[in-house]
């Protein structure tokens, strides 16, 4: 057979076969393999092209054109078939079975800030936004800072409000010289001794009292704030705390101020907010009559407010002049207010925590719920 005849036969075979071969390919790799048999480096058409120099000069041009045409034809057919296969595969996936999306996700688990920390940060931020600085003080402090400078009279029942853990002292030292702070008000004294007005400071941290029952923990968290400047008034105290409490509990929650006693403030007060659990404040409560019921008509008395519709939330007042005298501020020139509240109780309310013990039990089954 002449070179021309062989070439023609090759072209004929390729032209006759490729289409069936492509159709027979069921997926992309098979198609690519089939395509390689014609236009790949060792493919039929490629090999023919390599034979071109052996062809007689006068026919080389014509046969070359035919070979090129065939190659283009095959490439088109390949592209078309490939497109068809990919579309079919996509259609098959889109109409096929779903991924089992119920399997658990994996990868790093998120961590958790303790609910008390989270709330503490939130409270500090609320006051930070009002312009209060954050300060801290030691957990073991001097008797002076915890009691005397705050105006607690010696041997007075006011100190019964805070049963104290004292630190052991070496012989010869006053056995009551140092103690675990019973409130964060120690920071008031320390900051006022260290700085001059104007100042607005908020401080949060652990405090300690000798009390351990269903509603008391010997260590618990408190937040304390105070502001001293010329012209600070009780009206400002009410303004700042109302703003704060409504940010915390909701814009429409009622806030009630009533007189109370803490040795380091005068006038002193306590603040109640409407119970966020039963919203009993929406019903006018008359003392001595049926207390506010729980939502849903339950006959049970509300756990959070004991049916009064209000919850006692913080203590506050105008800083007592005796405190200013103890830290060297002129009480005629400066006035200020102070407030303090327990963080634990608010955390329990907010997160629906049924027992105080859970907050300090560090059971991961509890801590990773919130």
């Amino acid at each position, binding site marked *: 057979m002449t070179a021309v005849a062989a070439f023609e036969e090759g072209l004929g075979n390729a032209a006759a076969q490729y289409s069936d071969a492509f159709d027979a390919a069921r997926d992309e790799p098979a198609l690519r393999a089939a395509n390689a048999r014609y236009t790949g480096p060792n493919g039929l058409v490629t090999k023919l092209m390599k034979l071109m120099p052996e062809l007689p000069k006068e026919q080389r041009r014509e046969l070359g054109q035919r070979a090129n045409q065939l190659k283009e034809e095959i490439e088109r057919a390949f592209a078309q078939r490939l497109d068809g296969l990919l579309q079919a595969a996509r259609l098959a996936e889109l109409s096929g079975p779903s991924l089992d999306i119920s*399997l658990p996700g*994996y*990868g*790093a*688990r*998120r*961590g958790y*800030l303790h609910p*008390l*920390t989270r709330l503490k940060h939130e409270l500090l931020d609320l006051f*930070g936004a009002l*312009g209060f*600085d954050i*300060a801290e003080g*030691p*957990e*073991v*402090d001097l008797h002076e800072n915890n009691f005397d400078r705050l105006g607690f009279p010696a*041997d*007075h*029942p*006011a100190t*019964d409000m805070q049963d104290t*853990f*004292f*630190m052991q002292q070496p012989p010869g030292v006053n*056995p009551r010289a*140092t103690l*675990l702070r019973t409130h964060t008000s120690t920071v008031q004294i320390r900051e006022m001794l260290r*700085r001059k007005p104007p100042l607005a400071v908020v401080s949060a941290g*652990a405090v*300690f009292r000798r009390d*351990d029952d269903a509603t008391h923990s*010997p260590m618990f968290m408190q937040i304390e704030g105070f*502001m001293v400047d010329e*012209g600070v*008034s*009780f009206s*400002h105290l*009410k*303004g*700042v705390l*109302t*703003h704060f409490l409504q940010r915390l509990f909701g814009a429409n929650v009622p806030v009630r*101020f*009533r007189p*109370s*006693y803490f040795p380091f403030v*005068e*006038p002193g007060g306590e603040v109640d907010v409407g119970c966020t659990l039963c919203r009993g404040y929406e019903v006018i409560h008359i*003392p*001595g009559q049926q207390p506010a019921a729980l939502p849903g008509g339950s006959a049970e008395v509300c756990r959070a407010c004991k049916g009064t519709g209000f919850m006692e939330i913080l203590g506050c007042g*105008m800083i*007592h*002049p005796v405190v200013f005298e103890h830290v060297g501020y002129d009480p005629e020139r400066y006035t200020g207010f102070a407030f303090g509240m327990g963080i634990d109780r608010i955390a329990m309310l907010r997160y629906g925590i049924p027992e105080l013990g859970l907050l*300090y039990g*560090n059971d*991961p*089954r509890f*801590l990773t719920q919130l």
Partner: protein
Amino acid sequence: MLVSHKWLVELLEFDVAVDDVAKQLTSGGLEVEHVRRWGENLTGIVIAEVRGKKPHPSRDKLSLVTLFDGVAEQEVVCGASNVPDAGGLVAFARLGSTLPGGLKIEERKLGGVVSRGMICSEKELDIGADEDGILVIEKSRHTQPGAALADALDLRDTVYTLGLTPNRPDCLGHVGIARELCALIGDDNKAFTFPRPTSPRRLVQATSPLWQKSEHAFSLADQYGSMGAEPVKVSGIAPVSLQVSAPERCPRYGAALVTGVKIGPSAFVVRYRLHVLGQRAISNVVDATNLVLLGFGHPIHAFDLRKLRGSRIEVRLAKAGETMHTLDGQARALDADDLVICDGEGPVALAGVMGGANSEIGPGTEHVLIECAYFDPPTVRRTSKRTGLHTDSSHRFERGVDPSDVRAVLAHAAAWIADLAGGAVVPDALDFYAQPTTKAHVTFRRARAQALLGAEIDLARARAIFARLGCHVTPTAADTLAVTMPLHRPDLAREVDLIEEYARIVGYDTIATSLPNMRPSPEGTAPAIRFVRRVRESAASAGLWEAVNFAFVSPADHEKARVPASEARVANPMSEERSVLRTALLPGLLQNLVLSQRHAQKRFAGYEVARVFGANTDAKATLPSERYELGALLWGMRASSYDEREQLDFYDAKGMLESITHALAGVPVETVHDSSLDAQAPFLHPKRRGRVRVAGVDVGVLGELHPDIVNTYGLEGRPIYAALDVAALQHASEQVGVRKASPLPRFPASTRDLAVVVAEDVSAGEVASVLHDTAGTLAETVKLFDIYRGAPVPEGQKSLAFHVVYRDPRATLTDKLVDETHAKLTAIAEQRFRGTLR
């Protein structure tokens, strides 16, 4: 403090509604915690007249009583032995009624006889404490058979529970509450008047002096005003002498005598009033003293005069070694700081706290000496604290009773005791008051009050309020008042106290709210405080959950966890378990892990950021050092998949630390060997731990827990612990400073791999760092990607495989340069680590 509405109304001389009282007292700072209505749960309980009684046919202890209940005669079975004879009145629970305790009265067969109702005792009706027999009712015009018991005995009352603050001793009696209500809701022009004593029914006309001659004598007759008492002659009582030897502890001491009393139970009215106020009725004389305490808030004490040896009363400090028996039967060793009342031979009362058993009122008491005094509050408090005797009396004295009401209270007390117990008051009484208590004088400035409250002040209103609270007020210069404080208000001493009184009485709710002008402080929040918060947040971001453990732990836990012993001991811990302040966070987290394993949890990834306590550091060595530590404890299942076989190990912990230090300082964490950890971190596995370094600063330790500790705590697996010092971390972070951005590479990188077989004790970090150094600036990273052990690598060796990424930041690298550099790395790896290439 329990307060009777009925009693308040008697004192106020005007009527007030219960709701107003509750609301006003709370708004005035005397928090009403609870309101209880009395006499309203007695429906169906009526007065019945006994018509006849006979023994029960079959039961010895029961009787059959025929009653007339106003409608019909009923036969009931009764177990009491004190059923009155025909004509007597009893409290009868009709069929269908319910007793306050919840018992429903129905027909019941008792020993074969049907009982149609029940005759009740005080206790069963909750109108008294007597349960020894049924309540026998005295006839009066209200006690017709069939009358409702609550009406017949006037049982309706409302009792408020007040939560009082310790600055208000004046409100520990009904008179004080009435005064307060008068200021809160009364007419501005009507001042409260202290109740005037009324004359007793019988007064003594003594045939001989009953007191030793004394400069402190006064006459009670002056207190009673109009007299009309029956004169009673008394003789045969030796004159009593009074001496106050410790006037600074006992500035005032009044005494009066009542003779010829007959001890017995009080009338029902008295017993019922005590009952609703939470007091148990004891005997007429004792009940009267309790009524005085509840009425005036001024405790008094009654001595049996016959029992006072030597007819003598002396008030003095106890002598060391002296003892006495208090009323509760306890023998008390006295302290030289205790104030005592003595007779001619020794202590008969612990002043202001409790009486002595030797001078107690008893069934045979005939003559009573009444004491009404003012004792130094801190003295009473110290004795009360020391002895653990917190009584109604000490509660009031330690807060400060009114020293000025002694004569009036004595007069009331003497009359009540005499009238309740059938005795006669001796008009001559004593009042030792050598140095009258000084009253505080204060100037109230309207401008000052306005500035402090941020509200307009009405000076006329202020004046009326102060007057009604018992102050003496005179206007002085324009816009000021001169105010003298009353002695019943020891809490009023300064101008600011009056400003509070004004605000309290007008109501805090009348003061408008406003926001202050905030002047920003130049100082701001200290970086250290903000850093602690970042530490907490970055640890949570790294996948750990935060624990909050108590600051106090047991010394044994410190020892068990091999952390330094604590020098910060609590002097009065609640238990040994919580008796020292922690020096490390490990003991707490270990406890948490133990519990977690006990609860069959599969994973533990806890951290805590809290203060740990060290030795006293300041010059005066008073306060322990406090520093923040970050402790993290990991154990159990790896979180990367739901495959529960993979366990967390050292590298998981290191990865978490890495995430934390990246967040805090922007640099990776290094862990380095340091043999000093044997001594400094004995709680870690000596072969699986290291010092943690960040930006060249040592910040803490990381490692598996020592197997001994795992064993002692009974733990499973291999927990990994890290303890970092927060201040050191902050220092490292400051060393790094604010990280600056680098431009992205503009030239391509070329990656070559290198595997080298080295001895087991050669660390991968060491190899990587030598490779990096050798390649110099051309190597962008040298990163371990595989560790292989096993054939064909010989025993005791491992194959470490690294990706080396080459890049020249200024030009495209040529293959030739990369090949040459990589060859140097290969050579050095063979030389330095005696490694062989794989």
